[in-house]
Each structure stands twice: as C-alpha cells, then as structure tokens.
C-alpha cells in the first residue's frame, strides 16, 4: 500500500453521459450503414460486376432486408387480420418470455451459486464435478430442450420446462465466476480471519462472498442476457402458444410476405435482454459500493 494521500471523495463521474452519447452515435452509424447498403443495392439494381463476375445483391431488396421505417411501422400494424397491433402482441409475448427467463435466471443463479460454494470448499468435488459442468455447456441447448419439455410434462410441471432450459444456460457463468471470486481471496485477508479463529462459515460470509461479489455480478449480467436466449430457444419445442420464441418461429415462416415483423420481433428480444442486463448493472451499483481494484 503506497503512502500517497488519496482524494476524500471520488472525482465527479462524467463517464455515464459519455457512454450514452457514444451508444446513440453507434446506433445512428449502424442505421446509416443499413440504409446506405440498401441505397447502394437499389442504385446498382442489386447486381454488382467485379472483375467479370456478377455478385447478387438481392438480399438488399425490400423483401429481404426491409427499410428501417417499415420495421418501425410494423410495430403499429396488426400481425394478424383484425388482430391487435404488433407492439401489443410483442409486449404480451415478451412479458410471457420475460417471466420464464426471470425464473430461469433465478433458478440458474441459485444452482450456480450453490455449486460454486461446494466447489470452493471441496477440492475433491471440484476436480470430480467441474469437468461435467464444463461439458454440459458443450451440448447444444437445442438438443436438450425437447427432452426437458417431454420430461417436465411427464412430471406435470410443463410450465417449468422453459425456465429450466434457461437455467441450463445461466448457471454456468455463475458457477465459474463465483468460484473464482470465492477462491481468489488475498492470503493475508484469510490469515486475518485465522488470527481471530474464525469458522469456515464466518470466513465464507464475511470474506469469501463479499470478495466474490464483483465477479458474481459479472456473471449475473452474462446470465441475464443468456436467460432471455435460453427462454426463447426453450419455447421453440415446447408446444406453448405464447412467447417471443413462438412469435419468431411464426414470423420467420411468413418472412417472404412481411420481413419487417420478424425484424421487429428480433428488436424486441434484444431490447428485453438489454433491459434485463441494465437492471442487474443497476443492482450492482447499489450493492458494490466500494471501489474494485481489478474487475473482470
């Protein structure tokens, strides 16, 4: 620890405003690239001659890649004849998917956290089980999802199949990051506890878990977005009629008739993930109030 005196209060933080402005700028640039590409396609009549060979640019035409304004308009148009406007459908389905994602997220976080605590206290279990935890993530979720749905309906808890599939994606980062946080305790911090003859439990509660909190939040932010992906994928084989996953499935089936609907739905899914991420990030700022030397 150096002897230099430090500021009594942290310097005023302008980074939040700068981040917001940068984000807006990037969105504008992406929109310009999108529309620029479309304009370029239209100008070349969707064909580009390069060194004698012709490149097909028809993916840039309006039936393949809609104008941004058409995507925006799609939100306000009914997705079915005489149905409610799309945004209303998306909010309803989004809410359904979000609740499944949230349950999956919580379930995964709890399982991941408990696994990490077990692994942190037993080298034997860590060596024995961690390879399986890692291997579990190499199995494509689409291969597992139908199985989970079948099993869950057999035990009469089909409403838990989507959360379970989401949890399958979310527990892993929580286990890995929490384990790292629990075990990367400075040697002297641990020795301090030993001089007090503190129990394993006290060391866990007063040292290991607080020490792991920054890493736990890193994991939770990853898991928040992963849980949305897990819930959407989980809905596909579930046979449920609600949810963004089903909406994506339907709109991609009728993509050629109306591409903007699918893009609008993709946009809605993305927004949900960002929102969930943001909530966890906000929670992190409320909980982790000390300055973290090196965050991952």
């Amino acid at each position, binding site marked *: 620890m150096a002897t230099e005196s430090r500021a009594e209060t942290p310097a005023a933080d302008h980074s939040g405003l700068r981040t917001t402005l940068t984000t807006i700028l990037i969105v504008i640039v992406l929109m310009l690239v999108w529309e620029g590409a479309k304009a370029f396609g239209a100008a070349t009549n969707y064909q580009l001659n390069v060194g004698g060979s012709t490149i097909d640019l028809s993916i840039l035409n309006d039936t393949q890649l809609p104008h941004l304004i058409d995507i925006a308009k799609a939100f306000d148009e009914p997705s079915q004849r005489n149905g409610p406007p799309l945004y209303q459908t998306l909010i309803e389905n989004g809410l359904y998917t979000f609740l499944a994602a949230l349950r999956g997220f919580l379930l995964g976080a709890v399982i991941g956290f408990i696994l990490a605590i077990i692994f942190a206290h037993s080298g034997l279990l860590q060596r024995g089980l961690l390879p399986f935890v890692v291997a579990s993530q190499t199995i494509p979720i689409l291969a597992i999802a139908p199985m989970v749905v079948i099993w869950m309906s057999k035990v009469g808890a089909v409403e838990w199949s989507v959360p379970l599939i989401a949890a399958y994606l979310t527990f892993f980062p929580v286990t890995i990051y929490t384990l790292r946080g629990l075990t990367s305790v400075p040697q*002297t911090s641990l020795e*301090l506890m030993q001089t007090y003859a503190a129990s394993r439990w006290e060391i866990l509660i007063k040292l290991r878990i607080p*020490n792991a909190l920054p890493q736990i939040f890193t994991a939770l932010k990853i898991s928040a977005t992963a849980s949305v992906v897990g819930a959407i994928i989980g809905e596909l084989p579930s046979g449920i009629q609600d949810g963004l996953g089903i909406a994506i499935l339907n709109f991609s089936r009728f993509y050629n008739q109306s591409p903007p609907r699918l893009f609008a739905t993709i946009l809605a899914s993305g927004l949900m993930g960002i929102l969930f991420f943001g909530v966890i990030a906000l929670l992190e700022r409320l909980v982790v*109030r000390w300055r973290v030397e090196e965050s991952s």
Partner: protein
Amino acid sequence: MSKTFRTSDGSTVNALQDINLDVQPGEFVSLIGPSGCGKSTLLRIIADLIPSSSGSVTVNDKSASQARKDQDYGFVFQSPTLYDWRTVIKNVQLPLEIMKYPKAKRDERAREMLKLVDLGDFENKYPWQLSGGMQQRVSIARALAFEPKILLMDEPFGALDEMTRERMNNELLHIWSAIPDMTVIFVTHSISEAVYLSTRVAVLKPRPGRIAEIINIDLPQPRSPAARDLDQFFHLSNRVRHTLRAGVGSTAELGAAIE
C-alpha cells in the same frame, strides 16, 4: 523451536534453528534482522498461522494454537489488509462480530479505538479513500478492538515514510502504555524503531535463522521523542547495529538469503 521449509526442488531450508525466546506479559519485544533471517516466519509461528517443524511455542502457559483459538492474538500485517467492502468502522468491528460482541458494544469499542488512532472522523469512509498511513492505523485499531493479550506486528510501518513512521511509533507507545499487560511482539528492520519502542530487542541472524543476541533496552519509561536524543539511545542503537553486522557476515551471504 525450529522451522524447516521444503523448497520446490525437494531440498530443505532451515529457516529457523534453535530459537529460544521467553517473553513476559506486558513486554514490548522487537525482532530485528536482515531479510531472510526468518523474523516474519517466527512471528507467524507464534501466531499459529504456520506450524513449527520442531519444538513448541508456549503462550501464557498454553500452546500457540490454543492461544489462537482463545483469540489471544491481535495481528497487524505489513499491508493494512482492510476489507475493501467494509467502511472504516465496519473493518474495526470485524473481530468483534466474530467474537460475538453485542451490537451496542461493537459500536462503542470501534469508536473508542478509532479515536485512539485519531481517525474518529473517518468511520464511514471506505479504505480506498484513506492514505496508506491512515489505513494502517485502522488496522491497528482493528487489532486492538477486542483487547488481545498479545499484539503481533509484522513490519507494520515498513511502507510508511520516516515522518509518518515516527508519529505512528509514538501512537503505538501511547496505546501500549494505555492497555495494561498487553504484550507486543514487533517485527522490524529499522534499528531506531526497534530501540525506541522496545523493552527488549532480539537480534536475529540468517541462514539458518537464529537469535544472535537479546538486548535489554533500559531507556526510561514512558518513552517520548526526547529519548531519541539520549546518548543511551545512540549506544543501544550501535549495539544492535554491531550485532546485526556480526550476524550477517559477508554481503554476498546477505544477498543470497531468502525471505
């Protein structure tokens, strides 16, 4: 008592050999020696943070491990070792929480200790908001909060500048005199610090770590900064210095010493 380490290539190193040190209640004993003489190792063995290879450590008629379990030790590390997520006062309360002090008592003791180290106005700051010297004072307040019978200090002021260090020395003496019968074992590599603070100075020599000589520091008590100007202070410092020099031998040997 002795300590042998096994190195990564399988050979063994005698870190400490034939250590025999008898410390009385209320004493202030400094362990001084060059890097690699095993003074920090000795302190850690006394604290029961690492085991000795042979021999025994007896503290107030019990084993070191029993003394640790009975929460007799306050330990101050070279680095402040504060918990980043706890405010200053919460850091001081950490041992009190583990020792199951009631809440009101915890608050009272922690405030008292912070006042003692002159940090009463900083109780709600986080460690990173304090300077290195202030952080170390918090760690001393934390070590004293539960009135340990024995205060073990491992070069606590090693990272501080000379002026801060002298001020901290005075504060430490003040604290020590305020708590009756508290024993302090203090590791340092500063001769003047050892002589100024201690009732006895144990000079260690390296490879293997042994006690070269135990020197009685019969400067008047209570000590004040004026003691540093006494002829006696000068003579005692020289005596420690000569013992250190005799123990080290050639400088090549000092360079090869391992911490």
